[in-house]
């Protein structure tokens, strides 16, 4: 049995186990896994823009926040059902990406990173300001709903979808072109690649996931306020997960999400600032010692194919 077949078989088994888990598992377990799926979707989406094109987005949580608020507002004010609201949340995030993508992506690396950071804060301030719509600083409550299990499945599907999308992109020439942007944007342009458009596509694709997932998270929590959905901590966590697992790889974000989320739940959640401190330390360590992340290093050392 070749390693690929083994791996695929393993995947099927895990997927099956996860699918039936809610029947046997605890409420806590379902919610924890739900969160894990969310992080996989977030990290995987961040990887699409930052890992593939090298345009590091420091404010990606803005899409999560916009998704959360869009869904929350549609659910509370307009009475929409949550699945529909979440889809629209994804579209809204995409719309935001389109709006800011064009001017932002023209900026060179560090400027882009910081502009995204700034945008995140601007959005947070705007959301606080338009109190009538968003409940301002006091937040927005959604009508209660015991929907953890359906959300669990939808989140799972999101996580799987983002990973699958990454796989499809990386194995295509579109993905290769995105990577040339990271490798040498000037040379890429000289070779006839419209880098501006490619960056924008990657950016849009990377916004949908957080948008939908933001909506789902809002529905699941039942309550959101500006600081809870635009926190820097979320961006930090997304970044650490992908850097650790391997940016630009398919399974890197998944690995990073699993390892860091599990560690976070088991060990660090007891000491609130310690785990953030450790995240900072991990970022430093990864940048200095293994900038390609775990899977990135393995990929190079053992000449693994890109689909890892």
């Amino acid at each position, binding site marked *: 049995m070749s390693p690929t077949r083994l791996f695929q078989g393993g995947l099927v088994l895990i997927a099956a186990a996860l699918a039936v888990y809610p029947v046997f598992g605890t409420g806590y377990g379902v919610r924890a896994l739900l969160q894990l799926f969310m992080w996989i979707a977030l990290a995987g989406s961040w990887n699409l823009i930052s890992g593939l094109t*090298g345009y*590091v987005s*420091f404010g990606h949580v803005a899409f999560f926040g916009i998704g959360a608020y869009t869904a929350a507002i549609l659910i509370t004010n307009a009475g929409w059902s949550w699945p529909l609201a979440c889809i629209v949340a994804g579209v809204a995030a995409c719309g935001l990406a389109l709006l800011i993508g064009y*001017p*932002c992506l*023209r*900026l*060179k*690396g*560090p*400027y882009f*990173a*910081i*502009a995204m*950071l*700034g*945008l995140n*804060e*601007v959005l947070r*301030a*705007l959301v*606080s*300001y338009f109190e009538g719509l968003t409940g301002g600083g006091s937040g927005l409550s959604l009508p209660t709903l015991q929907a953890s299990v359906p959300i669990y499945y939808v989140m799972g599907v999101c996580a799987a979808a983002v990973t699958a999308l990454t796989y499809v992109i990386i194995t295509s020439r579109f993905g290769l072109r995105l990577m040339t942007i990271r490798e040498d944007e000037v040379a890429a342009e000289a070779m006839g690649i419209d880098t501006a458009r490619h960056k924008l596509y990657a950016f849009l694709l990377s916004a949908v996931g957080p948008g939908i997932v933001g909506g789902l998270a809002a529905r699941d929590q039942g309550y959101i306020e500006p600081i809870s959905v635009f926190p*820097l901590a979320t961006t*930090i966590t997304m*970044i650490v997960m992908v*850097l650790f697992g391997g940016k630009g790889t398919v399974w890197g974000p998944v690995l990073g999400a699993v390892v860091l989320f599990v560690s976070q739940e088991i060990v660090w959640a007891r000491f609130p*600032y*310690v785990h*953030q*401190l450790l*995240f*900072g*330390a*991990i*970022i*430093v360590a990864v*940048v*200095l010692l293994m*900038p390609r992340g775990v899977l990135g290093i393995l990929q190079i050392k053992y000449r693994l194919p890109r689909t890892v």
Partner: protein
Amino acid sequence: MNVVITPAMVGQVVISGLLSGTLYAMVALGLALIFGVMRVINIAHGPMLMLGAYATFFLYSAFGVNPYLTLPVSMAALFVIGMLLERTLVFRVVDAPELSSLLLTFGISIAVVNLAQLAFTSDLRAVEFLTGSFVVGPFAVSKSRLVAFVFAAIITAAVFVFLRNTKLGKAIRATSQSRDVAMVCGINVGRIHLITFGFAAALAAAGGTLIAVIVAIQPEMGQIWTFKSFLVIVLGGAGNYPGALVGGMLLGLIEQLASLFLTTQLSEAVAYVLLVLVLFVRPTGILGGRST
């Protein structure tokens, strides 16, 4: 919103803007130096300021010493810390792509802020030393802000004199213009990097000390300062040291102007909106200068 603008208000805005602008300029100068000399964007700059503020707070609470006298101490302490950071971590990414140093300093900043939260808790601290304002005619100037302005102006001027007239200052300027040429001229570039980083941290610490008397002290206070310093540099032109002065003043003035018209919530966002706008319109800064 009915706001009648009187000349007195404009004057107040200008004065307040210049006062805070000078402080912004001093702190931003540190960031500009690191960027100019090492091509590193130091996201951990704000946390250095925060540490300076805490240093002042603890010295003040423990020994009751005049906070302004703690300036040399906080500056010296952060000078050392800055050099330590450079020697252990930052020097490794100076030649790497700029995003590596961005991510590295990002990681450092997270670590430092959370260390501070563990060590100092996130309780708000304050240095109640100089309260009240001077009132001259229709203008009111808070005493602590005025003193901060004076020190910031002196320190900033001193830095420029240092850069222009001393051998080390010239070496720093040479390195920021062209590292290779500086090396060929016999300048120990590694040492310049070390000193510059420490220097910048000291400037941030000075800002922290001065600010400690004005605002509440908490571990996350530095974040907005990193941002504003970056904004000042973008406004004044990256790699353009006098530009930091102009950028600082501009930021100070714009902020004060905005607070006339906007609610406090929105005026907080002014800095961010301004940064985003400037980046979109003129990525190389208003006064021009080197882009990355």
